[in-house]
């Protein structure tokens, strides 16, 4: 199996706080991976390093053999926590924007998904609710044929019905060579679609295992294991 992401003793500090500490991790292609941890555990820091938005203080990271940079961004589709599209844009303009920006963007997929979710492409982003904006953003990100999808909290703001549709979108839109990294707190909602989970706690990697193996060995759901490992 080929590796899509590899990091060795990855460390990131913000002043005196260590956000990530000596993370060693290797992720294969064709997986859906849950990046799970409590607030402030380093999930977003990790995702930002993958996307070249933060530079590690120590250690190294490779995406398909490349350091984070222009070339790696061509193959990574990133959904940040916060939206970055300007409010004045219409949904259709945001689609054109993505099409100009990314060679692997497939306009038709985006319009198909908008249609399925009953979203009007002529609406301006500022007129949309928070949840609807999140849907639009996810549609844009999932309409790329990327090798690695990094989704930071993709389902936080949307209603349960749309959540199912979004999970289906994720399942049906990635192909065998692509890997999806998904960070969220809503574990129970997503655990059936995950191949593997990564638990991080205070910047350290505490677990990286296939989901079915955890259920087999421990006889409990990822949700209950999470509650146990991160008990306050």
């Amino acid at each position, binding site marked *: 199996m080929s590796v899509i992401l590899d990091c060795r003793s990855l460390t990131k500090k913000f002043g005196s706080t260590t956000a990530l500490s000596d993370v060693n991790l290797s992720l294969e292609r064709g997986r859906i991976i849950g990046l799970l941890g409590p607030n402030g555990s380093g999930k977003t820091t990790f995702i930002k390093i993958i996307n070249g938005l933060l530079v590690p203080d120590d250690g190294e990271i490779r995406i398909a053999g490349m350091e984070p940079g222009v070339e790696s961004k061509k193959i990574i589709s990133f959904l940040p926590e916060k939206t970055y599209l300007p409010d004045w844009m219409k949904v259709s303009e945001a689609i054109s924007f993505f099409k100009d920006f990314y060679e692997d963007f497939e306009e038709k997929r985006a319009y198909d998904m908008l249609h399925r979710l009953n979203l009007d492409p002529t609406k301006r982003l500022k007129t949309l609710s928070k949840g609807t904006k999140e849907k639009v953003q996810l549609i844009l990100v999932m309409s790329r044929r990327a090798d690695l999808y990094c989704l930071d909290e993709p389902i936080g703001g949307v209603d349960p019905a749309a959540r199912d549709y979004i999970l289906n979108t994720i*399942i049906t839109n990635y192909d065998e060579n692509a890997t999806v990294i998904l960070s969220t707190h809503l574990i129970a909602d997503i655990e*059936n679609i995950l191949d593997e989970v990564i638990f991080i706690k205070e910047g350290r990697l505490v677990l990286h295992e296939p989901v079915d193996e955890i259920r087999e060995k421990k006889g409990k759901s990822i949700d*209950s294991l999470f509650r146990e490992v991160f008990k306050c």
Partner: protein
Amino acid sequence: MQWELNTDKPVYLQLVEQIQAEIISGSYKPGDKLPSVRDLAAQATVNPNTMQRAMTELEREGLVYTNRTAGRFITSDEDLIKQLKKQYITSVIQEFLDRMKQLGLELDEIIHYLNIVSDNNSVIRR
């Protein structure tokens, strides 16, 4: 097909069991073509890799087979399906009996209750 998944058992095993149940009940008939792994995965909202694993398991048991070009089919071996049915029923009943025994019921009491409940059911149906 309605998929019901709980969270403490490996997902692929639950998928295997549910497809077995469909075969036993006759919802899937011998020789029926199955939807693609990707479609089944989307229906059940599970990962395609997990659905693939369930299919591999069903293939190992001989309940489904792949025809290289045409797709994946339910076995036409009716003896195998009968055997599966027997196994399945035995294990469901065994599970039920174990639970009743945990409640301290003897076999004749269990049968007594079974009769009451099934009488009630048939009254309701009429």
